[in-house]
């Protein structure tokens, strides 16, 4: 199948106009010796064949397990109205709104997205999106390094291992010093953190809730961080902000996070959404596109890409970031999702997640040998200790139709018996009870 409209007659006329006798002549600038040595690909197939083939592959995936796996990426409900909106080709087949007069729909949507992210995080300014939660943390760290002129980053090991690993990769050729603070009783250790905090510190990065699901109030840490002239960066789970104290309320300078939970399918790891919000004095250090409000020549309100002198297409090697294409369509998903839920729906969703997780804790703690970790409060995810290796238990639970959680031993030494369990609004009481029954059966066997 091909999507080209040319008839033989069209081609003939166009070649004539150009003044060549065949298409091959148009490639004459490629020297003969540089022609493709091979191009060994299968012949094209029809839409029906390709669709059937990929339908078949999709069915080889176990996407229908009842999922209690989270670890930063959550199985939340996506309303049908959201898909109907983002599937409009006027949104998804457009490109970056460089020409504002024919892109007001996109520009206003991004401005609304920026507003929604500021509201959720409690901060002043947001950009138009970054690739994912990990690159967002990295960009925030680099902002802090530029802003403070320092190069030491203190990070909480309660932040996702994946994000920490990404930070190390991105900075491996730069001179950035990292200190990782251990997690004690599920929360970042103040004592360790304050020991390392000094006037060389560019930023302290904390995650809330942390990887183990623990909720914290970081206000005290942020206050100390500011005393040393460093910036405080939060990596945060946006759904939790319907309930939890926002980064702004704790006086963080920058909030970042993975926006997948805001109406974006899990889709095996992407596309996702990196969001970033900051205090307004940091706006000129921000990476990526930003939309601003202005007026047209008649004084009518309109929106444009703005503060572009930060960006690669103007500043080139001096830009704040190299990002060009971002995750606009995922940002649109986020703002539509939040708008469908509305002010009280966002609270209600957070509430549902919290309640269901608390119920799951209750039910699971009744199983012999299962210890629910309760040293810190949690939001919708929590840690349990099992009487044996968690990865083995997870494996056995698959046969019973459950992806019952994330075995922490995969990421943390010495935690082989620990399981991280996430419970979203999608899980029913009945599923939670069946999870407990199956787990009990597996542990007894």
């Amino acid at each position, binding site marked *: 199948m091909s999507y080209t409209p040319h008839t033989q007659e069209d081609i003939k006329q166009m070649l004539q106009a150009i003044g060549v006798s065949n298409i091959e002549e148009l490639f004459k600038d490629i020297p003969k010796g540089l022609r493709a040595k091979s191009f060994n690909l*299968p012949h094209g197939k029809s839409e029906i064949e390709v669709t059937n083939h990929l339908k078949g592959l*999709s069915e080889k995936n176990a996407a229908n397990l009842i999922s209690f796996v989270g670890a930063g990426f959550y199985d939340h409900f996506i309303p049908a109205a959201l898909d109907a909106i983002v599937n409009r080709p006027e949104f998804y087949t457009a490109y970056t709104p460089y020409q504002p007069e024919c892109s007001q729909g996109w520009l206003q949507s991004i401005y609304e997205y920026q*507003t929604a992210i500021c509201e959720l995080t409690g901060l002043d300014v947001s950009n138009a999106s970054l690739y994912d939660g990990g690159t967002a943390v990295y960009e925030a760290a680099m902002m802090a390094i530029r802003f403070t002129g320092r190069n030491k980053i203190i990070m909480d090991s309660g932040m996702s291992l994946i994000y920490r690993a990404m930070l190390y990769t991105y900075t491996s050729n730069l001179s950035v010093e990292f200190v990782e603070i251990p997690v004690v009783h599920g929360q970042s250790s103040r004592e360790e953190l304050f020991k390392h905090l000094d006037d060389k510190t560019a930023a302290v990065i904390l995650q809330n809730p942390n990887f183990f699901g623990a909720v914290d109030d970081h206000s005290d840490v942020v206050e100390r961080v500011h005393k040393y002239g460093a910036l405080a960066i939060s990596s945060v789970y946006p759904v939790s902000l319907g309930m939890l104290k926002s980064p702004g309320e704790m006086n963080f300078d920058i909030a970042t996070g993975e926006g997948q939970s805001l109406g974006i399918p899990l889709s095996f790891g992407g596309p*996702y959404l990196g969001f970033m919000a900051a205090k307004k004095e940091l706006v000129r250090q921000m990476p990526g596109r930003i939309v601003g409000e202005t007026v047209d020549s008649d004084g009518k309100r309109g929106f444009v890409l703005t503060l572009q002198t930060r960006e*690669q297409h103007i500043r080139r090697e001096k830009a704040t970031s190299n990002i060009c294409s971002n995750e606009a369509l995922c940002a649109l998903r986020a703002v539509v999702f*939040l708008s469908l839920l509305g002010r009280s729906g966002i609270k209600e969703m957070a509430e549902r997640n919290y309640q269901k997780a608390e119920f799951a804790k*209750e039910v699971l703690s009744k199983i012999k040998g299962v210890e629910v970790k309760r040293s810190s409060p949690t939001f919708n995810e929590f840690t349990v200790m099992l009487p044996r290796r968690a990865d083995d238990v997870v494996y056995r639970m698959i046969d019973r139709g459950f992806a019952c959680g994330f075995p922490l031993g995969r990421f943390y030494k010495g935690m082989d018996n620990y399981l991280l369990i996430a419970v979203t609004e999608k899980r029913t009481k009945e599923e939670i009870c069946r999870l407990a029954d199956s787990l009990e059966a597996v542990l007894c066997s």
Partner: protein
Amino acid sequence: MQLIFEKHKQGRRGFCFPGPDVPLAKPLAAKYCRSKDTHIASLSELDVVRHYTNLSRLNFSVDTNFYPLGSCTMKYNPKFTERIAAFEGFSNLHPLLPQLAGGGMLAQGSLEVLYETEKFLSEITGMSAFTMQPLAGAHGELTGVMLIAAYHKNNGSRRKYVIVPDSSHGTNPASAAIAGYQVIVIPTGKDGYMDLEQYKKHLNNDVAAVMLTCPDTLGIFNPHIKEIADMAHQVGALMYYDGANLNALLGKARPGDLGFDVVHINLHKTFGTPHGGGGPGAGPVGVSEALVDFLPIPRVVRRSDATYALEYHRHKSIGYIAPFYGNFGVILKAYAYMLCLGKDGLIEAAELAVLNANYCQVMLKDHYDLAFEKNCMHECVFSAARQAKNGVHAIDIAKYLIDKGYHPPTVYFPLIVKEALMIEPTETESKETIDAFIEVMIEIAGLAKDDPIRVKQAPLHMPIKRLDETKAAREPNLRWKP
């Protein structure tokens, strides 16, 4: 149009949760909880749907308008790929399932897609292996430059510089700088090619890489490309290929054969996945044999029993550059596109893209100055310098085109062309569409002589007129406030 926040009405709702089915737990202590509600708007489902549907209608898009935005390859995005990406077996798959014991078996379908796409791209570009992880073109560049740094480090050499031509896209120097290199910029000669004398002068064994686009951002295939690569290799530097313009070369030439060591591809350009209003895209990176060991983890491998697995233990790898395996949903659409077009369809895409661009170039070259008198590949670059003498600048031409229902070409890029107009029609546009566009372009050239004011007033038929961008930057208003 009103903002969604201005339509808020307390008490409305656009979504309902099922009634609570678990007993009420003790609430979280107040110190952990937010003290104030957000000002997210509360609306009915219809309010939200109508708001965003009406907003969508204010956009030009490929499905509604000709969109010859140079360098961006705004080709038609086949609809069936959207349906495939929405199959629940793909869209509901948690990326950590392979991390569960035996979990690789839970994601065999998706792993096969990744593996097969990698194989296709390797053959298309003549590279040894690909990582599908980079999340956009620029992310691919950064990954590529980090791979190059790892390669040199492994050889015990610390190099300081990355060379880019002055015609390069802004992401190239930005990516090199962010990865820790200093950037050397080589000017473009009068002949439209990178100045070889200057290039030789700056090439030495402190240069880590040379980053090029091919065909370059002027739409020209540089016949000296192999020579440039050979010279780089002689001093131990690696060649980086910015694949933004790969659409011109499908089946005709391969970066691997041209001497490139690292390649990124924009799946959202060449392989027909939608641009999503600015993203998501995907920027997979291919490498020659010498760099395979440095690719990010995990790698997708095929076992002897024809099952697929993820490999994490690769001690030379640069590590994690994405949380998982890339923008899977985008990769999947590109894979479906490649299967559908196949070998002949991909070659045809390149041929007709080049035909369409050359046709535009020929039909317009009496009316606008060509940036360089050269054959073009998949895009042609004009300068509106002639029109600018009468006060009609590239931006004015763009605005007039908008009034006529055309998305403008890329303007003011590449930076080395004064008043640049970069036109990339792509292969999916018909002669009729292109003829109609050409007619308007010729009309504008005429107006620039006879009635420049008319062009400078445009657009007159859009919901808004020209916007005050200076005000937007001077008095930033970046969010609605209650």
